[in-house]
């Protein structure tokens, strides 16, 4: 859950732009919207591999709600919803994300962590922070220590707080597609 200083409509519209989700959802490689309510998702997995699945929108209320579920054949069945609700007294929009994974047996968190390299809850909270930054400021805050921006899994392996060399700077910025 996070509160952004923007209207529910603005927050909804930015999130509903599925093909731009990878800008702040770092575990995604790409999302393709097929225009019929169906989407094709490619997520990054460890060792340079990817996981792909198709999904359909199950509910879509402008300014309020986007819900989806994966279609048959996904390696990890998943479904989720993002809810946008106005915060009191014009204090922006509260955003709540729920994602449910239904892997074939086993502990959900462990399996998803194995797939994406991080816990689902951590993944969501990092993505929400970056979404807030994008919506409020137009960019993801990058420091020398965290050149890719907020990313919990990188917090213990920080780059030193000194400028990146040329190669590191290039590696840090390809995701900038505001």
């Amino acid at each position: 859950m996070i509160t952004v200083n923007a209207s529910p409509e603005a927050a909804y519209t930015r999130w509903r732009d599925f093909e731009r989700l990878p800008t702040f959802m770092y575990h995604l490689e790409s999302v393709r919207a097929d225009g019929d309510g169906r989407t094709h998702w490619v997520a990054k997995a460890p060792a340079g591999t990817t996981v792909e699945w198709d999904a359909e929108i199950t509910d879509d209320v402008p300014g309020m709600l986007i819900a989806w579920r994966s279609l048959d054949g996904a390696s990890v069945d998943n479904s989720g919803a993002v809810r946008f609700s106005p915060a009191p007294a014009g204090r922006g929009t509260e955003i709540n994300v729920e994602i449910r994974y239904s892997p074939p047996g086993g502990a959900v968190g462990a399996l998803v962590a194995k797939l994406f390299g991080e816990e689902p809850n951590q993944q969501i909270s990092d993505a929400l922070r970056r979404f807030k930054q994008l919506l409020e400021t137009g960019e993801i805050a990058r420091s020398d220590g965290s050149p890719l921006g907020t990313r919990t899994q990188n917090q213990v392996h920080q780059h030193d707080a000194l400028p990146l060399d040329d190669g590191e700077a290039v590696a840090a910025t390809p995701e900038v597609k505001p």
Partner: protein
Amino acid sequence: MKANCWMGANRVEVRDVPDPKILNRRDAIVRITSTAICGSDLHLYDGYVPTMEKGDILGHEFMGEVVEVGPGAASKLSVGDRVVVPFPIACGACLACERGLYSVCENTNPNAAMAEKFFGSATAGVFGYSHLTGGYAGGQAQYARVPFADVGPLKIESDLTDDQVLFLSDILPTGYMGAEMCDIRPGDIVAVWGAGPVGQFAVVSALLLGAEKVIAIDRFPNRLEMICRNTACEVINYEECDVREALRDLTGGRGPDACIDAVGLEAHHGSGPIQAYDRVKQATQVETDRPHALRQAITSCRNGGIVSVVGVYGGMVDKFPMGSVMNRSLTIRSGQCHVHKYMRPLLEHIESGRLDPTFIITHRLDLADAASAYETFKHKEDECVKVVLNPFP
């Protein structure tokens, strides 16, 4: 470029590092013309602030000339502009920034999750001040990358010298905010613990804001003499008398209406055993901070008064006199300075001649001499109060 890097407790080294680059649209690169060492840099130097990495560039009080501007900041800044850079990095758009609480900006600390573990919620990003505040390279260097450059840097368009405006980056607004939080009313007496640069600027500011009387408390005669030379304040040397008694004598027996802690987590205590007690607890990490000044500020304050804390604390304090706070209706106010809010009004005070912060400078050295400058400043050798470094001698 050359930059002053933290290399472990009590060790800094000027090293060759890559030049900073624009990473985001709203960034600018500043060629630094003056940069200072802050008392709070000593907390890093002494090793009391967690999450420092060997090699981190220090420094959060700097100014210079804009040499590159990202497209997102070009409406506010141009190459060649002369700017003072505030130490907190603020986005200007979140709820905290909208309310003027720039040092707790919600968007500029990429290591927010780390900071939440320490503080509960994250603070803004800060230049050169550990990875807990974002892991941003600092300004004790020849160049710095300044994020959200359309929000923070203050353009200096008059012919004021670097010395006159450099301290708008931190210590002058910090001292001013310490005084402002006291809600000074006519007749009020304000006591300030610590006559370092922030304490001295708090004294100046409290007088500017209309305090009847301001009392500075320290143990270093040169610092107390310095503030007496430059303002009309009273002083107490806590090694020569009982502070609470002295304060009662100066306040009609009631205690100061407001007390400012401009000391922070490495306070020194006049009583050997109490100093030793907290020093041992700090060394064994049972408590991270030594809060003598804060304890005394609380117990000295008059009933219903305000305790304003601008001295830096890092974590936990021990033996906190909460009973005194609660039963005597005290108000505690605190915060890392919301520098952005104060820069312009304080610049106007400087331009009009009501404020001249240059008196605080005792040492001018080249950036290359940063290691010896830290030692001199830490041990207050040679009556050192404030060091300004020149990155391009």
